[in-house]
């Protein structure tokens, strides 16, 4: 049963294919960390009011931008169908999510994860491609590259257009970079978003969202047609508040009994010891204890 010399030579020549065969299954195993499928959001009314910057490590420039924002800006023709930046689309606006993979036909390796949500749609490139240069176009979806850390998909997004952190005017600059960590806990998918924004934040801002596995889910269409200029907001008018002139800025703090200073956020307000500090702060006379009803 001894192999002929020729066959032995053939086997010696075959060491490279053998090595490749050995490597291939080991690389593909982690493709079985299956993030794909339909995911239903579990976000319970994270509505924020104007003037609510609580828990956000916002800086003075960020406060100024937020203070001058007017809710009617969303009715401008260019804003009506404006999509969310990818992270606010996943965190703040409850969004059904569908995750799929894109394969390289030759290698059967995952080239990208495709995240499709009601509000946002983006790719996470897994093939090691570099991020484009700074001068490249910025988009609502940004540009994302990912890698695995243990059982967590980690991706970094930049090249975002200027957008928002909240739906009530806290701005996100085009310089922002977002690190997203996606971990599947059985039938729960949790994403952790860490936002760096040198323009409007003093330190990274961290927040989370979860989805439940829901294979029967159907993501609705998002039909949207901009109205002609002047249809809602008078033509040529851009609603805004001049600095110091926002007369509803303290309504949130007043109605909830929060010290106005605390409502303006900042990194210090995120620590437990800030609770003691708040006890020394003045609170505006409350006008209601039923404010929450407006949110429900």
């Amino acid at each position, binding site marked *: 049963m001894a192999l002929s010399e020729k066959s032995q030579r053939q086997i010696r020549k075959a060491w490279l294919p053998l090595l490749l065969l050995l490597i291939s*299954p080991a690389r593909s195993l982690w493709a079985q960390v299956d993030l794909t499928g339909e995911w239903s959001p579990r976000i*319970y009314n*994270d509505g924020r009011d104007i003037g609510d910057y609580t828990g956000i490590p916002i800086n003075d420039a960020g406060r100024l931008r937020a203070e001058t924002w007017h809710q009617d800006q969303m009715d401008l023709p260019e804003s009506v169908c404006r999509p969310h930046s990818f992270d606010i689309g996943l965190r703040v606006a409850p969004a059904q999510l569908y995750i799929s993979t894109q394969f390289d036909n030759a290698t059967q390796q995952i080239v990208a994860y495709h995240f499709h949500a009601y509000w946002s749609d983006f790719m996470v490139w897994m093939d090691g491609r570099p991020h484009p240069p700074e001068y490249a176009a910025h988009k609502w979806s940004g540009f994302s590259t990912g890698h695995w850390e*243990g059982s967590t998909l980690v991706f970094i997004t930049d090249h975002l257009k200027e957008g928002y952190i909240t739906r009530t005017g806290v701005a996100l600059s085009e310089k922002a970079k977002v*690190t997203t960590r996606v971990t599947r*806990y059985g*039938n*729960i998918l949790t994403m952790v978003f860490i936002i760096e924004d040198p323009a409007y934040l003093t330190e990274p801002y961290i927040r989370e969202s979860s989805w439940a596995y829901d294979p029967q889910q159907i993501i609705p269409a998002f039909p949207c047609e901009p109205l002609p200029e002047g249809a809602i907001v008078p033509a040529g008018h851009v609603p805004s508040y001049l600095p110091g002139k926002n007369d509803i800025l303290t309504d949130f703090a007043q109605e*909830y009994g929060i010290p106005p200073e605390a409502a303006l956020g900042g990194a210090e307000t995120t620590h437990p010891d800030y*609770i003691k500090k708040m006890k020394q702060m003045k609170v505006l006379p409350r006008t209601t204890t039923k404010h929450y009803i407006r949110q429900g």
Partner: protein
Amino acid sequence: MATSGRRNGESAAWLLVAVLSLALGTQAMAQGFGARTEESGTQPPTARTARSVAPQDLTGYWESIVTEYWRLRMMVPDKSDYVTVPLNKEGARVADTWDPAKDEAAGEACKGYGAAAIMQVPGRLHIYWQDDNTLRMDIDSGTQTRIFHFGGASAANETASWQGFSVASWEGTRPDSQRAGGGGPILDGGTAGTAGTVGAPPEELGGVRAGYLKVVTNHLRPGYLQKNGVPYSANATVEEYFDRFADHGNNWLVVTTVVTDPQYLAEPFITHAHFKKLADNSGWDPTPCRATEAR
């Protein structure tokens, strides 16, 4: 014939390569899934402890960083402010009867510090191994202690308490445990799922060990999901997932909590909390349970 013989030789060689590849590939996979081999009996189960197979080091001091739901966590919300909680009608009815003075008088000021809510209460954690299969978490807010039992510990005859009985396991250490249902049921009844074993030794990817801590808690005294009397019942089950990572020079611990309570909740209630690692115990500030304070 010479050509045919050569082809035969090549075929034999390639067949041998294929067989060897399959055999060695299988061996490599078996090595990668060493824990399965161990679980099947080649190594005594007692050789593995929860501490020895831990994919993450959760020990140390951690501080809450409250970046969301701030008004519900850093303050005591107003009565009936439960817009973020999927209460059923009975849950809403009970929440509307909240009376903190009555709780204080009845010696039940700790109702807002139970396992279903304690991760939401701003404060600090001290996590350490009580023994090789028991992870302990001391919490300065309300001066509470949680015990996470690994290795299939049983809750038989356990008296209901604020922190209940917690069964822990390392999950997600293997790719196939990430498939649907691998981490136990979430939406179909909230039973203990697969938790209870020590967990398999982790694999590595990207230089990071795969896996997270899963904790399932029941045997709870009825308590509050929020400090303003939003109730959970003695029938509640709490599933938690603890995950540690580093980012921007900080070490973070993120906890995803799923509370299932058929008595007061219309559906499982999911919350998150994140904690930043502290260098030491400075700032540790034990407080008593207080019904009218945020912590």
